[in-house]
């Protein structure tokens, strides 16, 4: 290796272990040009000496501390030099750029004007509370990391169907093959999440969030059991006695909470299992809040019958990146997937585990939300800036005297800025307290992973501190700059005759316009979405929600296909058809067994539950003659007695009958909105024909669908909860299928019937997976509750913005009238008509009002467009009308805010006014 190569290697190592590029950039930014190169070189030398004494991470911390210290000291030094306070010649100790005296002086100035100070603190606190609360929720949802050692290396390996966008699961055999070919991981594990019914000594503990996991999963998480042990390789082998792990909260809640639980037997899915360990409270892995773990075998010669539908997680080797992992997975993929058609593309996707359950859309939505709330803070800070500006004008004499006594401009700005900081410090504390209060109220409504907590942690506090600094900068720096500009130019001449010398108009006017613009945009955008959010999930029909239980039953993949053998298309279709027939038979048995119990009124199956969001599909509608129309609508599939189970009367026609409910039966029930939209009225719809397109058009045999005749019209039942204005949808007969929602109408409440339903399901089939269970009430309420919360947040933020802007406008007008009293007096004395005096005083305020409102409406349109692109649901109920209405509301409210000062102008006596100070 040549000497040059040696040097290059050394330099590369320096960049990697030494001063990072970001640090170098920061140093370049902060240090004066003549000091940069030497400081960098010396720092590298010092780092070289330190390296032998510290660990790698300790070294990183040390280096960053040095870099930040250099940046801070040199920036301070440069500011001093810039402000003419260079501590060279003439430097005195008491002339530091800020001192305790300044802080004391600023505090005294604030105490002297208590009303203004309290108003400013409250204003900023309100502005800070909402974004902090919003960020806290974001933090708990999106930026959470798993509570395991080096959890940033834990990833999920996903196969994503390119066209459909959904994730494809693996079979046990596919997983084993994949595991052998992956080289970038310390550990790879497979798991499958499901709802598991658990019973202890005959008493059902209900359906719990469970997971079947390969024993490697605990090695991956590097988390030991709290009591007992985690699964070992033997637990998953054939012939091993069935064992289970339980979560700490379940153990405390229902299993006695003492160590004797180890070795006891619980019934899991109707079979006895021995408890071998208790997992710690916040484990919950690999789901959000798993409480029961069962071992999953993927290697035994006789593959676990239910081992399909597996997901894969892994711990990356130190130094491996997500890009490398993705590239590797891409090379592994094509050889493995036998279950997708040749022309379907499967994308390899490796993502950090903690963020796996959150879509990028949701992150965008959350960021948009917090962004909207930060706007509120800017409005509040602009408001406080106006207050400060007005106060500084009143203090122009004092500032002039200090200038005359030798205070530099920097010193005055510092002091005024310190005042703003002193206001924002209690504001951030108060704001954080308000945010905490709001979060405590909000907590029950949010579904968070077990490992995340809704708390004001370091990241949230840092965010709050940044907000405080931002608000102090907005509220303090502009007014201070303005106030000291004239003061620096010998303003003493006006002191003592009551005049003020600080130009107040332009900055204050600009602040008002910005404030109005942001407020109109915020309230306007809230208006565009709020109605959609509030109406989310309203069906218009009263359903017996509390008495209806919904359980999703899933029969998995056909046993012939679970081993990952390669089969041709015909065999595959035959296997599925047979499997679906078995599922249908089991479903019929479960329904029959339940219906014969006196606690149950009716039982049915469907593909969709009212209130849950459903993607739109295209259908073809037969018109008069040969013409047909294509339309987008929602399609659900149901079995007979669906409407009876929900206590709903059909508006016209009849329900499906038993025996008709097989795929291919060419009849359909439509809802009222569909009938009115496409056929004019409910009675006119009967006998008309429609035809689903795409996937919905094919029965399981693959034959294209025939025309479907409308035999009944039902009321709208929440097929499109996001948009009641487009509630139209159709119900097709639900054929034999391996996955269906079991809908049970009970006599005494859904919760009490759950053990009975679980018992019947287990009696019929032990293989069926229960995906999720809820009452109809919950399934309707859950999405609606989240959206209503968000909508309420935005409307409250918008109203606060409105009030703040109006207060600001009022204060500005009142101040302007007071300041111009003498001028008004002179105008009146020389005979100006009242109208022209009013025009002079009001004109500017009204112009600002109109300008702010117009800009706000335009900004609102842009923001609403952006929001529509981000939010995954169609929630737009308003448009330009709402925005224009908001602008008008602001204009009217603003005019009213100006009225009181105007009345003062009208009541002025010219002689008195001229004598005013």
């Amino acid at each position, binding site marked *: 290796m040549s000497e040059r190569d040696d040097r290059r290697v050394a330099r590369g190592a320096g960049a990697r272990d030494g001063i990072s590029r970001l640090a170098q950039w920061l140093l370049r930014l902060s240090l004066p040009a003549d*000091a940069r190169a*030497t400081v960098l070189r*010396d*720092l590298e030398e*010092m780092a070289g000496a330190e390296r032998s004494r510290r660990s790698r991470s300790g070294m990183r911390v040390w280096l960053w501390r040095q870099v930040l*210290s250099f940046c801070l*000291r*040199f920036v301070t030094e440069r500011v001093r030099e810039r402000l003419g306070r260079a501590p*060279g*010649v003439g430097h005195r100790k008491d002339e530091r750029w800020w001192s305790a005296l300044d802080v004391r002086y600023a505090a005294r100035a604030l105490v002297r004007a208590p009303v203004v100070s309290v108003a400013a603190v409250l204003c900023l606190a309100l502005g800070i509370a909402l974004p902090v609360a919003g960020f806290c929720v974001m933090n708990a949802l999106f930026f959470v990391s798993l509570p395991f050692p080096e959890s940033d290396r834990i990833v999920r390996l996903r196969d994503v169907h390119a066209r459909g966008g959904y994730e494809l699961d693996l079979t046990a055999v596919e997983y084993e093959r994949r595991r052998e070919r992956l080289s970038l991981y310390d550990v790879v594990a497979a798991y499958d999440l499901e709802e598991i019914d658990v019973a202890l000594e005959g008493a059902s503990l209900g359906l719990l969030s469970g997971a079947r996991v390969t024993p490697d999963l605990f090695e991956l998480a590097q988390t030991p059991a709290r009591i007992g042990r985690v699964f070992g390789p033997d637990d998953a082998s054939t012939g091993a006695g069935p064992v289970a792990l339980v979560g700490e909260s379940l153990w405390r809640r229902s299993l006695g909470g003492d160590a004797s639980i180890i070795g006891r037997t619980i019934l899991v899915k109707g079979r006895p299992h021995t408890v071998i360990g208790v997992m710690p409270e916040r484990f919950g892995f690999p789901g959000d809040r798993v409480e029961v773990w069962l071992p999953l075998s993927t290697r035994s010669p006789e593959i676990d019958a239910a081992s399909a539908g597996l997901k894969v997680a892994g711990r990356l080797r130190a130094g491996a990146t997500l890009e490398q992992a993705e590239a590797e997975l891409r090379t592994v993929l094509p050889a493995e997937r036998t279950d997708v058609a040749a022309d379907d593309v499967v994308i390899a996707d490796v993502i950090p585990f903690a963020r796996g359950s959150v879509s990028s859309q949701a992150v965008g939505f959350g960021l948009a939300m917090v962004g909207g709330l930060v706007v509120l803070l800017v409005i509040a800070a602009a408001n406080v800036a106006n207050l400060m500006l007005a106060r500084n004008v009143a203090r122009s004499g004092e500032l002039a005297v200090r200038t005359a006594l030798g205070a530099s401009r920097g010193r005055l700005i510092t002091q005024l800025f310190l005042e703003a900081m002193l206001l924002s410090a209690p504001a951030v504390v108060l704001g954080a307290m308000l945010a905490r209060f709001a979060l405590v109220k909000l907590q029950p409504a949010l579904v968070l992973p077990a490992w995340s907590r809704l708390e004001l942690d370091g990241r949230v506090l840092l965010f709050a501190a940044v907000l405080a600094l931002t608000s102090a900068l907005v509220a303090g720096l502009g007014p201070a700059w303005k106030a000291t500009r004239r003061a620096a130019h010998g303003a003493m001449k006006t002191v003592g005759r009551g005049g003020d010398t600080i130009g107040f108009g332009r900055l204050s006017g600009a602040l008002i316009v910005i404030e109005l613009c942001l407020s109109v945009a915020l309230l306007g955008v809230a208006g565009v979405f709020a109605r959609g959010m509030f109406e989310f999930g309203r069906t218009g029909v009263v359903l017996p929600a509390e008495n209806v239980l919904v359980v999703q039953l899933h029969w998995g993949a056909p046993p012939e296909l679970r081993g990952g053998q390669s089969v041709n298309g015909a065999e595959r279709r035959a296997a599925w058809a047979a499997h679906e027939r078995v599922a249908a038979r089991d479903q019929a048995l479960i329904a029959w067994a339940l219906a014969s119990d006196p606690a149950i009124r009716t039982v049915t199956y469907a593909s969709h539950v009212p209130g849950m969001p459903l993607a739109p599909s295209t259908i073809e509608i037969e018109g008069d003659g040969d013409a047909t129309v294509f339309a987008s609508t929602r399609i659900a599939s149901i079995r007979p007695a669906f409407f009876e189970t929900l206590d709903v009367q059909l508006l016209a026609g009849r329900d499906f009958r038993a025996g008709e409910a097989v795929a291919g039966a060419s009849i359909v029930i439509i809802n009222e909105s569909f009938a009115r939209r496409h056929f004019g009225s409910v009675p006119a719809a009967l006998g008309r024909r429609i035809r689903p397109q795409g996937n919905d058009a094919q029965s399981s045999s693959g034959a294209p669908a025939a025309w479907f005749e409308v035999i009944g019209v039902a009321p709208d039942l929440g097929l499109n909860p996001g948009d009641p204005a487009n509630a139209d949808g159709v119900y097709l007969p639900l054929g034999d299928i391996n996955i269906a929602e079991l809908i049970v109408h009970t006599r005494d409440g859904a919760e009490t019937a759950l053990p009975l339903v679980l018992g019947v399901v287990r009696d019929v089939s032990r293989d069926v997976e229960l995906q999720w269970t809820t009452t109809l009430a919950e399934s309707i309420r859950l999405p609606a509750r989240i959206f209503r919360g968000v909508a309420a947040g935005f409307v409250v933020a918008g109203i606060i913005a409105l009030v703040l802007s109006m207060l600001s406008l009022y204060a500005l007008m009142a101040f302007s009238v007071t300041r111009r009293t003498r001028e008004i007096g002179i105008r009146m004395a020389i005979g100006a008509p009242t109208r022209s005096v009013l025009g002079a005083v009001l004109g500017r305020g009204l112009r600002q009002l109109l300008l702010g409102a117009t800009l706000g409406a335009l900004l609102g349109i842009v923001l609403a467009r952006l929001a529509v692109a981000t939010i995954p649901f169609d929630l737009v109920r308003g448009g330009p009308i709402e925005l224009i209405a908001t602008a008008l509301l602001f204009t009217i409210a603003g005019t009213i805010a100006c009225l009181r000062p105007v009345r003062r102008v009208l009541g002025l006596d010219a002689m008195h006014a001229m004598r005013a100070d």
Partner: protein
Amino acid sequence: VARHSLGEFEQLVLLAILRIGEETYGVPIVAEIEEQTGREISRAAVYVALRRLEQKGLVCVRVESSGESPGKPRSMVRLMPEAVERLRESRRTLTSMWTGLERVLR
């Protein structure tokens, strides 16, 4: 131009340069102060102090480009005669202030 007394830290830096005894740069100065005072000091503070001392005309800085790492110059500092004079003055002031306090401060 009025002469003002040196700050404590500035004195430490000047004394460190004096102790090293020849033209030197930041790293040895830091090491010397840490060794003599037995406490860890902020590296950045040393560089800021050197800059100020240069502005006050108490040290003279020469940029030396070294052969071993091209493109990375090193700032070598040397004491000006006035610095020694100021240190002497400072010691005189302090000594006179300490005189007679032995009993109280023992």
